[in-house]
């Protein structure tokens, strides 16, 4: 009842405010009339009576205002009045307003976009059941020379862990895999990225299938029943979302598989590229499934209630040490390590994303300082107005509130434009950023708007508070005493502006340095030498299904004939075959021993990349021969126990020794097999962002199914390499119409693909830094112009007394450049700190790269001098007579 009454009252006060005000006037007038009437009754004349009543009453306006102040909504009324007043002041200087709004819009828009992405990618939990209970468990080699210490797991290790330790509720495994996918009758061939998942993977993750079922333990054995799970995207794309695909057959590498289920739409683990799942064990041969030294799997474990991940992992680690001791001659890790699943998914983008977020926040802060600076300047121009209003009884709080409203208006308009920009920008960023994990989870939602609103208020306070407080402070009445003829400007105000400017410059320098380092990294990567021909080279992959190509002869026959056909195409200068082209990834490695350097135990460092090549590969890719010879046509089929090694291999394992004629020995199916080294080739990079690694090249024309059925054709062309892709594909189709080709790329594109993320973050940070530089220049120009206006009379006197233009120029320039120098020093320190923080994503440059620092300092100084020059020149050319007459 009571609150209903209150509600009615407050509604009435809101909607019928005008009437209420009129009524209040009536009420007070009634009182006056009563008093007047009483005074007349006492014998005063009517006019005297009225005056006496007024006297007794006091100030009616004050009474009215005070009464109104108790009404509900009076805060709203005040606010509306402030907004109206603020808007009027702002429209009086549209140039300033527009610049300020745009500056804030850019800052808020960029920050909101990055926040949206960071939240979706880094902060939001994976869409699994109790995702915080999931961890990834890895093997860890004590003497690892490369990598991050999280080594992928061998199938037999995973099986032992799951059977013999009990710290986790359950453990599941998956590995990446690839298939040639065709329809039931070998139609529509395509290469799909797939994954093998253990039967319990989906229950460990807490993902029931959208249709059908997941794998059973009986299916998850080597040579088990051939079944497959489709992801939602493949289900929609290839099967049109038709639920009757359940129970139908598809062919994977020519083997029929039965579709048993479809995963839900949101399931894009481990990434969106994986198109279908098969049982984990079915991706191994029975022998490999029992191997402790074949590392390729990822293990997901769900924590048991009350058992910490560290405790459970240490139990796994203890078991792993036993396995290590039991296999002394093989690369078996000694320990186990874990990390949260979310961290595992986002580890590659975490640092770049945080760097970007910091960069945009830096930019937003600079934007705030800039607006703040502009407001201080306006505050200076309005000093007298503020002083007069304070003298007439305007409360300081009211004046501050009014100025804050102005900055709130700017920030609100800026925020509105910013959010609109950000919706576009987020979309663009998410689609442009290749390999951004969880990109599909990025969308703008209510929380993003709340964040943007928060930013608006934060920037409004940041930008508005300092100018508002400083312009209404205790010294405000001094403005009234300041004669229009006084010489010195208000120095405290200038100091405030210079301080703001110093901070702005420091932030800009830090941002510039980071951007410079990232950009240099990117340039280094783009111009990195892979160690082979990089211009006019086309690559194209194919994989021969082991079902049809089941003998050495069949594999070699295909490789031979495709090479011959490609070489005879017009426009082809040279062609070769390799398992994986330079720059295109790790592919595979193997451990070996050197019979000439016997060692009693397994040593981890005896490990090198494995490639298979045809005799013409090195010449075709212009990789130099350093010693011995390349393969010839003689090293084929079973005469295959020869290898070519890379320069790095020779230096690492045969330092100061001639490797030619020496042997390496690799554990194969039938025991150790020796291979003779016949040549040394130049180094190539397996990834443009990584150092080179010792490499062993074996003859691809051995034709061993499985080991040589994956091949990349590399073609050096005379003209546009991509123009040859169709003719080559046609040649392959003539040989085997059901064989799909994939990864048709130029070497340039491979490098571009690997460096896409670096290029992206470098470009963005550089853009932010450039914007910040522009903002700093505007700020600097603004401050200096203001200072010159303040000192116009002083400069006029100096000129009148004989100061030369050069001296005036120097005076003004130095005044403007002092904050620049201080800011520069602070900024260099901050930049060095920022460089150290982003060290992990730098390549080919150190965090203290002198060239980058020099370039960025130069860049800033030129901008600073340019923006100071205009006001300084104007001051130097000033006509003293005009200056002295200036009011």
């Amino acid at each position, binding site marked *: 009842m*009571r609150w209903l*009454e*209150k509600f009615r*009252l407050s509604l009435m*006060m809101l909607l019928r405010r005008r009437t209420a005000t009129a*009524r*209040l006037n*009536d*009420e*007070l007038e*009634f*009182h006056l*009339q*009563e*008093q007047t009437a009483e005074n007349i009754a006492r014998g005063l004349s009517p006019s005297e009576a009225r005056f006496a009543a007024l006297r*007794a*009453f*006091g*100030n009616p306006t*004050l*009474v*009215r205002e*005070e*009464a*109104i*102040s*108790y*009404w*509900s909504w009076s805060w709203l009324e005040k606010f509306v009045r402030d907004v109206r007043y603020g808007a009027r002041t702002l429209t009086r200087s549209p140039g300033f307003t527009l610049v300020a709004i745009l500056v804030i819009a850019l800052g808020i828009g960029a920050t909101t976009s990055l926040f949206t992405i960071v939240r979706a990618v880094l902060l939001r939990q994976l869409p699994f059941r109790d995702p915080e209970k999931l961890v990834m468990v890895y093997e860890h080699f004590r003497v690892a020379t490369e990598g991050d210490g999280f080594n992928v797991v061998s199938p037999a290790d995973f099986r032992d862990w799951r059977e013999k330790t009990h710290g986790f509720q359950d453990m599941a495994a998956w590995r990446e895999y690839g298939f040639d996918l065709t329809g039931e009758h070998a139609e529509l061939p395509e290469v799909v990225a797939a994954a093998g998942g253990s039967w319990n993977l989906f229950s460990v993750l807490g993902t029931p299938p959208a249709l059908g079922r997941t794998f059973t333990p009986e299916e998850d054995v080597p040579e088990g029943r051939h079944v497959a799970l489709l992801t939602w995207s493949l289900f929609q794309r290839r099967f049109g979302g038709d639920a009757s695909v359940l129970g139908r057959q598809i062919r994977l590498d020519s083997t029929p598989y039965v579709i048993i289920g479809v995963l839900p739409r949101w399931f894009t683990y481990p990434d969106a590229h994986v198109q279908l799942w098969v049982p984990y064990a079915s991706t191994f041969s029975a022998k490999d499934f029992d191997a402790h030294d074949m590392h390729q799997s990822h293990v997901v474990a769900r924590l048991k209630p009350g058992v910490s991940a560290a405790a459970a992992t240490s139990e796994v680690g203890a078991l792993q040490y036993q396995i290590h001791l039991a296999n002394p001659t093989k690369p078996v890790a000694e320990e186990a390590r874990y990390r949260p699943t979310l961290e595992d998914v986002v580890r590659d983008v975490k640092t770049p994303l945080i760097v970007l977020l910091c960069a945009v926040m830096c930019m937003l802060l600079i934007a705030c300082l800039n607006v703040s600076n502009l407001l201080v300047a306006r505050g200076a121009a309005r000093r007298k107005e503020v002083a007069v209003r304070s003298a007439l009884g305007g409360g300081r709080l009211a004046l501050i509130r009014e100025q804050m409203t102005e900055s709130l208006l700017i920030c609100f308009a800026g925020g509105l434009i910013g959010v609109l920009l950000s919706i576009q920008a987020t979309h663009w960023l998410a689609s442009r950023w290749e390999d951004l994990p969880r990109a599909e989870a990025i969308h703008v939602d209510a929380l993003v708007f709340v964040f943007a609103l928060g930013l608006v208020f934060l920037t409004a306070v940041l930008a508005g508070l300092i100018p508002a407080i400083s312009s209404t402070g205790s010294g405000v009445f001094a403005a009234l005493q300041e004669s229009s003829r006084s010489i010195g400007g208000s120095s405290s105000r200038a100091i405030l502006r210079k301080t703001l400017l110093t901070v702005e410059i420091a932030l800009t320098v830090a941002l510039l340095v980071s951007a410079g380092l990232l950009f240099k990294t990117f340039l280094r990567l783009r111009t990195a030498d892979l160690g082979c021909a990089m211009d006019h080279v086309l690559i194209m992959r194919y994989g021969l299904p082991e079902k049809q190509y089941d003998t050495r002869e069949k594999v070699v026959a295909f490789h031979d004939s495709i090479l011959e056909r490609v070489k005879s195409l017009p426009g082809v200068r040279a062609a070769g075959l390799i398992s994986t082209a330079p720059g295109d990834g790790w592919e595979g490695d193997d451990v070996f021993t050197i019979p000439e350097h016997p060692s009693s135990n397994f040593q981890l460092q005896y490990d090198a990349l494995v490639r298979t090549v045809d005799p013409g590969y090195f010449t075709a890719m212009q990789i130099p021969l350093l010693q011995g010879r390349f393969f010839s046509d003689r090293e084929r089929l079973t005469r295959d126990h020869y290898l070519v090694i890379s320069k790095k291999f020779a230096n690492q394992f045969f330092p100061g020794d001639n490797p030619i004629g020496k042997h390496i020995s690799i554990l194969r199916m039938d025991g150790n097999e020796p291979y003779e080294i016949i040549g040394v080739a130049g180094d190539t990079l397996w990834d443009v962002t990584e150092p080179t690694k010792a490499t062993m090249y074996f003859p691809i024309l051995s034709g061993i199914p499985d080991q040589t059925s994956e091949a990349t054709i590399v073609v050096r062309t005379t003209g546009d390499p991509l123009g040859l892709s169709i003719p080559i594909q046609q040649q392959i189709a003539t040989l085997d119409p059901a064989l799909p080709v994939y990864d048709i790329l130029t070497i340039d594109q491979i490098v571009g693909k690997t460096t896409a993320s670096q290029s992206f973050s470098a470009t963005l940070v550089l853009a932010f830094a450039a914007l910040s530089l522009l903002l700093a220049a505007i700020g600097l120009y603004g401050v200096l112009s203001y200072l010159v206006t303040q000192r116009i009379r002083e400069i006029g006197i100096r000129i009148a007394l004989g100061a030369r233009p050069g001296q005036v120029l120097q005076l003004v320039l130095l005044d403007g450049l002092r904050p620049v120098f201080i800011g520069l020093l602070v900024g260099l320190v901050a930049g060095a700190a920022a460089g150290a923080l982003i060290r992990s994503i730098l390549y080919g440059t150190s965090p203290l790269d002198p060239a980058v620092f020099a370039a960025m300092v130069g860049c800033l100084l030129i901008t600073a001098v340019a923006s100071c020059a205009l006001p300084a020149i104007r001051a130097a050319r000033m006509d003293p007579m005009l200056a002295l007459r200036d009011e």
Partner: protein
Amino acid sequence: MGKPSDLVQGTLDLLILKTISLEPKHGWAIAKRIQQISNEVLQVQQGSLYPALHRLEQQGWIRARWSETESGRPAKFYALTATGRAQLEREKESWNRLSTAINLVVEGA
């Protein structure tokens, strides 16, 4: 009689509520009534009366209605609401406690 003493702080609400507890009154009448009953000791300043009336109204303790005075002129009459009556009781009680306490100190010892 010296200069009319200022109202003890915080007691204006109590006086207003009490004054209109019998029948609705307009502002002028409330001021007059307080003056009369207190034998001209308590002078309510108009500057505080009207803000106080509006505050009490916003708090829902009194309700205003426009009607005619005995002389037929329209005026704003304030009446006590149910919650206002409860508030009056509370204020009275606390006033009694306070004045008793002050009396004890002043008269005793």
